[in-house]
């Protein structure tokens, strides 16, 4: 029986799914999902009205972060896990510069097209979710998605075996779709200071949950561990240990993504492996109900190219150390909550020994990571996908007590 998809209730999002054809770039591995169920452009109600209410159907999603909606009525099973669909770039509910919801009045004030502003004034609409042209997060339209970022995410998804890149789990992108021309014209009229001039896209992706590690969701694993456990229905020691094992396995994979995706490009004479660029485990990853960490924001995952073996080893170490605190935090939070729920009364040293056993068990079959315990120390022996005899790296995961 697959592990079910879970989500924390949040504000409802009223969207309209347009029937009209638009430019779509899809993931062939997940084509059937797109073709059969998800096909369509997801636009906010107010934009739809401003665009003259073209043919489409109403859809009620759930707000996720500031520009996404969860489409929890559409769920799919991949392997042993259920996922729901989510759309990124379907408008924002919040003002880009103030801690307040977007309102019709705000939108009128930032509208640079008198005709559209006039139409907006005639619409007495409470829901002001909107895709704007304010440049945000580099060169991304606030509330929408830029094509380059969307494409990077799709490229990472194409590299996966559906939801997994060599043990590293992702929230795969099903398809990218460009907003229809009329909607792009409307969006480009709304900005506060700096106007975005590119095209407007959306990502449709699959997620196993909306529980992020520490930031940017209504319940986060680090801050609200008890609520997350309730959501994941973890009640027995067996279920908690299974969860912890999956979490350990998937976080260790995330820490060694570069090594496990390493390739040697004989044409350029360089090594390439996937690295994180302005994305982090604490805010850009979600945790599935079975504990498997899934990286959600794939637009920040790109190849890192280096020439010399020393630089490869340096990259492996850098990626590991950059993210290991977040990984340890999640393991510790899970262990503490397990002890709390089951009143295990373990001492800190017992917890550390327990976590050591779990991590070792989790990585037993991992082809890129070996975990060794030497006394009370624990080491991770990373063996990259290519040239492992030359490029292997030993990293201390738990220090000793001396």
């Amino acid at each position: 029986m697959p592990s079910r998809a879970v989500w924390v209730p949040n504000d409802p999002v009223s969207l309209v799914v347009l029937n009209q054809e638009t430019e779509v770039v899809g993931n062939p591995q997940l084509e059937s999902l797109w073709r059969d169920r998800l096909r369509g452009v997801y636009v906010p109600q107010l934009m739809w009205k401003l665009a003259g209410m073209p043919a489409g159907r109403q859809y009620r999603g759930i707000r996720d972060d500031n520009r996404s909606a969860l489409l929890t009525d559409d769920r799919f099973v991949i392997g042993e896990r259920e996922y729901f669909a989510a759309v990124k770039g379907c408008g924002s509910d919040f003002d880009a510069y103030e801690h307040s919801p977007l309102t019709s009045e705000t939108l009128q004030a930032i509208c640079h097209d008198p005709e559209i502003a006039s139409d907006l004034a005639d619409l007495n609409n409470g829901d002001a979710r909107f895709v704007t042209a304010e440049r945000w997060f580099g060169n991304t339209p606030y509330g929408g998605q830029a094509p380059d970022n969307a494409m990077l995410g799709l490229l990472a998804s194409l590299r996966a075996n559906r939801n997994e890149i060599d043990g590293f789990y992702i929230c795969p992108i099903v398809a990218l779709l460009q907003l229809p021309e009329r909607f792009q014209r409307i969006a480009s009229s709304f900005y506060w200071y700096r106007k975005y001039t590119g095209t407007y896209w959306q990502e449709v992706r699959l997620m196993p949950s909306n529980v992020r590690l520490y930031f940017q969701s209504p319940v986060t694993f680090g801050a609200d561990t008890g609520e997350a456990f309730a959501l994941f229905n973890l009640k027995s020691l067996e279920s908690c240990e299974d969860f912890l094992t999956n979490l350990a396995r998937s976080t260790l994979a995330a820490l060694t993504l570069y090594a496990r995706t390493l390739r040697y490009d004989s044409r350029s004479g360089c090594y390439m492996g996937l690295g994180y660029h302005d994305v982090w485990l604490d805010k850009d990853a979600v945790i599935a109900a079975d504990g498997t960490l899934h990286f959600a924001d794939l637009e920040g995952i790109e190849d890192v190219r280096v020439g010399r073996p020393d630089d490869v080893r340096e990259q492996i170490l850098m990626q590991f150390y950059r993210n290991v605190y977040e990984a340890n935090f999640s393991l510790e939070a899970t262990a503490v909550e397990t002890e709390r729920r089951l009143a295990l009364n373990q001492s800190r040293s017992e917890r550390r020994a327990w976590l050591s056993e779990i991590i070792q068990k989790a990585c037993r079959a991992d082809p890129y990571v070996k975990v060794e315990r030497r006394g009370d120390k624990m080491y991770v022996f990373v063996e990259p996908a290519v040239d492992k005899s030359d490029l292997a790296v030993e990293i201390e995961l738990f220090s000793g007590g001396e």
Partner: protein
Amino acid sequence: MRMLVSRALGILEALRRREATEFTVDEQMELLNLRLVNVCSSDDYGKMRNAVRDFSVLSQKVRSMARELDTSSGPMSSGFRRWKKSELVKARELYKSVLARLEDAAGKKAAIEALVYNSASGFYVSLALEGRRTISDMNSWKQRFGSEELGAFINRMHAMRNSMELSVLGASSLVDQFMSPRPGMIKPELRPSAIIASQSGVDAERFEEMFALAPQTHGMEAYPEEDELLVSTYLSSATGGQEHLASRYSTAHSNLFGYGLGTGNAELKALALTDTPMEQQGEMVDRMRWLKEIVVLPDENDIAWLARSPYTVLEVKSRYEELVSAVVALGHQENSDIRTACAIMAGSALSVDVLTRKFDALVGQLRYVFDAAYVAAAMLASGPLDPDEAMHVFKEAVGVVSRANFFDDAGEVENLALLIVNRYGTDAQAIRQPPPRFFAEQPLPEQPSQEDERRRQMTPWYYWYYWHNRYYGRPMYRYYRTHPGHMHTVPHFG
């Protein structure tokens, strides 16, 4: 001769450390029957060792196969196999079967590593999961129950856990029954009331009856619906029908206003007097008036708490002031929380010295668990349990509430657990057990003397209420007059 707790603790601790230890066949049998250990014969041990002999080879094979199956794209390096789709499917199936063998062997290997040879029986023994939990129980309670038989001790622990589970189950059922006709009712507000009602044996019907009475209670008209829950909880745990309770409440309310005690939350004070016989309400009011004159407190509600203590007014005033001085001398800054905590402890049957040391030990453990750690520490310190015991019961209660998912926000869990733990932490029976560490200086005789019996009778058995981020307590114990000036009916404290 059955095994004692202290002996079992020694054996199980050795097994946990995987150290060689000797114990008799009978002892081994008893531990096995109680599911605290796993036992393995020498033959089975040998078979298991054979089964894991090729563990490292198998492990290496799984890793190699997984590498070979690596299908992520990117620039192709030498050494990566290009799979045909049908071959890939077959290879993945084979990999799964080898992986399953590895998992099986790993389980056996872990089991072997945990086994310790018992030369007295000729068997290999390891600690079972239940054994780990029992070690934790025994370490918390060994001072009190170290000389008890192991089976009786385990039953005692099971009874405590079952009772907690049932309380939460009952509360959960009450919430569901109460919520279903009122979908707009705020659930978090209902949960503390449901826990209290469940522990008092109040069923949904009684709770409904008293909830219907709440808005008719004098002075409560302007209160929001969730506050009426507390009213109904107070009323439902008192005996009597609607008319009887309404009459008692009205008398209490009139008395409070008549004697100038209607300030603060008079309605709540009056509600807490509804289980007091009519003829004793006057004495209670007198004590409150007197205390209001002679004790300086930042919160008038604390006066009501002192008034219901089993001491004379002058005694409790003296205890309260001694406690404030002692707690401040520990290094805590005097503030309204400290004064409330001292008011709670002043009503306890324990000496000021014992209370101060228990409070100090508990504050350290409860800091960061509660916003008002002083108040929670005072609640637990006032009971007869040693701090380690109180914390053990508290952790169990946290676990029970969490496992039942009886919360919306994780911040509710500890407050609900504190309501549950006080049911156990103040159990009058516990004080008659051999004294643990913190009671060493005031041991109680095994055969209760008249004085001991009086103390036991006076030991409050409180029900605690949680309302607007404040705790309110009321003893469920019967009134026991020790002096004409002593009152025992208790309204609330904060």
